[in-house]
């Protein structure tokens, strides 16, 4: 390599031009520097205020519900059925048990169905899986009140009475699209090589799916299903058309049943202080329950990302 190029002196007129330009750039940058610094400061303050604006009501909400709710808690609150307004010693035991039963049954319906549909989306290609995926996305956006009306039209109107199991069906439909998309995403994280390794051992497709794909994506599946449950537990509108609520303690799936959101809805809008207190207690129990579900779901999700990393 010749060193001529390196040794050759640069043309001097270019030098002068360069220096001139540099000075110009420096000057213009310096002249706007203060303005840009101030602009940066203002935008920081304004956007920071927006964060505060978002956080204040949210934190105030949680704090207020906690304050009012804790005051309503007692042993009787968890163990007794509601009493008429003004008579002390009432609780929301029937609503707590009702919420557990209704959501439990909804999970029993939705988990297997969601898993199978998700498998279909993974294992098959073509227009039908695409359409189902699209349908799941659309169903996620449908307001819960409409799903309640659907359960009313399909079940309550035909059987002629309100029932706990119609509420379970409504909540299952509500959970289904969240589960399908969540399950699908979780199972897609299983590497194709593992899938093929299973097949190479001579295992039938169904065995591979069971032992490799589903087992390998358990944390993701748990997250998806827990988040779906967390959403369904707090839903009120579908329950008002199906389980409708009840003042007595009932375990029958074929009878109207109470649930925590219904208690909040009905007691919260009465003028009786004792019932309002029950509503706050119920709201607190519901909020804590949903937060615990979301946090557990997130822990599983975090474990999953750490593993794949």
């Amino acid at each position: 390599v010749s060193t001529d190029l390196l040794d050759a002196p640069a043309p001097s007129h270019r030098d002068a031009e360069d220096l001139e330009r540099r000075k110009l750039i420096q000057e213009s940058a310096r002249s706007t520097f203060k303005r840009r610094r101030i602009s940066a400061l203002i935008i920081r303050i304004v956007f920071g205020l927006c964060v505060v604006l978002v956080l204040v009501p949210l934190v105030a909400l949680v704090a207020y519900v906690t304050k009012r709710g804790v005051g309503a808690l007692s042993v009787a609150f968890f163990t007794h059925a509601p009493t008429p307004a003004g008579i002390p010693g009432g609780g929301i035991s029937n609503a707590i048990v009702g919420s557990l039963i209704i959501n439990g049954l909804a999970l029993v319906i939705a988990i297997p169905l969601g898993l199978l549909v998700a498998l279909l989306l993974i294992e098959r290609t073509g227009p039908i899986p695409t359409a189902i995926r699209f349908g799941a996305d659309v169903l996620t956006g449908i307001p819960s009140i409409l799903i309640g009306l659907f359960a009313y039209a399909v079940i309550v109107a035909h059987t002629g009475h309100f029932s706990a199991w119609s509420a379970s069906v409504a909540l299952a439909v509500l959970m289904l699209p969240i589960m399908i998309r969540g399950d699908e995403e979780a199972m897609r994280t299983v590497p194709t090589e593992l899938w093929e390794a299973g097949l190479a051992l001579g295992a039938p497709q169904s065995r591979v799916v069971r032992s490799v794909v589903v087992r390998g994506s358990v944390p993701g599946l748990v997250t998806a299903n827990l988040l779906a449950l967390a959403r369904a537990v707090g839903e009120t509108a579908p329950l008002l058309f199906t389980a409708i609520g009840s003042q007595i303690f009932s375990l029958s799936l074929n009878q109207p049943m109470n649930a925590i959101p219904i208690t909040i809805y009905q007691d919260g809008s009465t003028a009786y202080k004792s019932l309002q207190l029950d509503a706050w207690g119920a709201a607190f129990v519901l909020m804590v329950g949903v937060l615990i579900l979301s946090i557990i779901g997130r822990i599983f999700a975090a474990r999953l990302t750490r593993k794949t990393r």
Partner: protein
Amino acid sequence: VLLWGAGLVFVAVLAAIIEGIVSQSTQAWGRFGLGFIWSTAWDQVSNHYGAGTFIIGTVTVTVIAMIIAVPVGLACASFLTEMCPRRIATPLGIGIDLIAAVPSIVIGLWGLYVMQPLFVRDVEPFLKTVPVVELLFKGAPLGAGLILAGFVLSIMIVPTMVALSRTALAGVSTLDREAAMALGATPWQVIRKVVVPGANSGVLAAATLALGRAVGETIAVTFLIGNATSIGHPFSLLNPGATLGSIIVLTFGESQQGSLYRSALLALAVILLAMTLLVNLGGRWLVRKNRNFRLP
């Protein structure tokens, strides 16, 4: 076979939802025709119904919520991704996500007992004194009304907006940001000209989902909107109103199976269904159209 069976069940459920709601509304559509959509009548005595009042209520409340939630949510997301050390941004983001999971009935209860008195005592009298703005706030500050419902609704959708647009903004390449900064761009210019356009489709998707949630939200709004079956004259954001969802929840129980009234309520549900589908499909279309958006 099992898999296809499951798929079939799911498709059947989807079809049944639409069928179950539409079929019961035919009586109302047959009686009032398309005029049902803009008629503001709602009279059980003369058995004359229209959706106008509730569509106006839904749209007004949703617009209020979006006007507050979209800019604030976007600014909040920008702050968390652009100007905030990760040590602080991550816990803040998780906190906002968790609060997004608080059920709407709880937020409604809080709005009823905390925000409503606050609005009656301070916020609404104050809004009435602001020039120009006060034109929208005629009448008595009652508390329960369009503005209160819209405001609390904005609190409900802001976490959605923050969480989703934060993901979208974080997806913009750091190199693009640094290039703009090297040119001496201020943070505002970086956000406005590089980050937000770069995350265009993601921000749109966030706004669409927030919009869909706002349109369909029922329970909290029922607690707060005042539940009047007419818009009130003169039009004011302080007036009580009703949304498609709130009127259905409140009066469904008192309607007779097979009556025209019941059918009119289900016709409202059909309109609500159409609105949410429109928002969702329109949003998807916009997102797809903008996916290949490139900086000029």
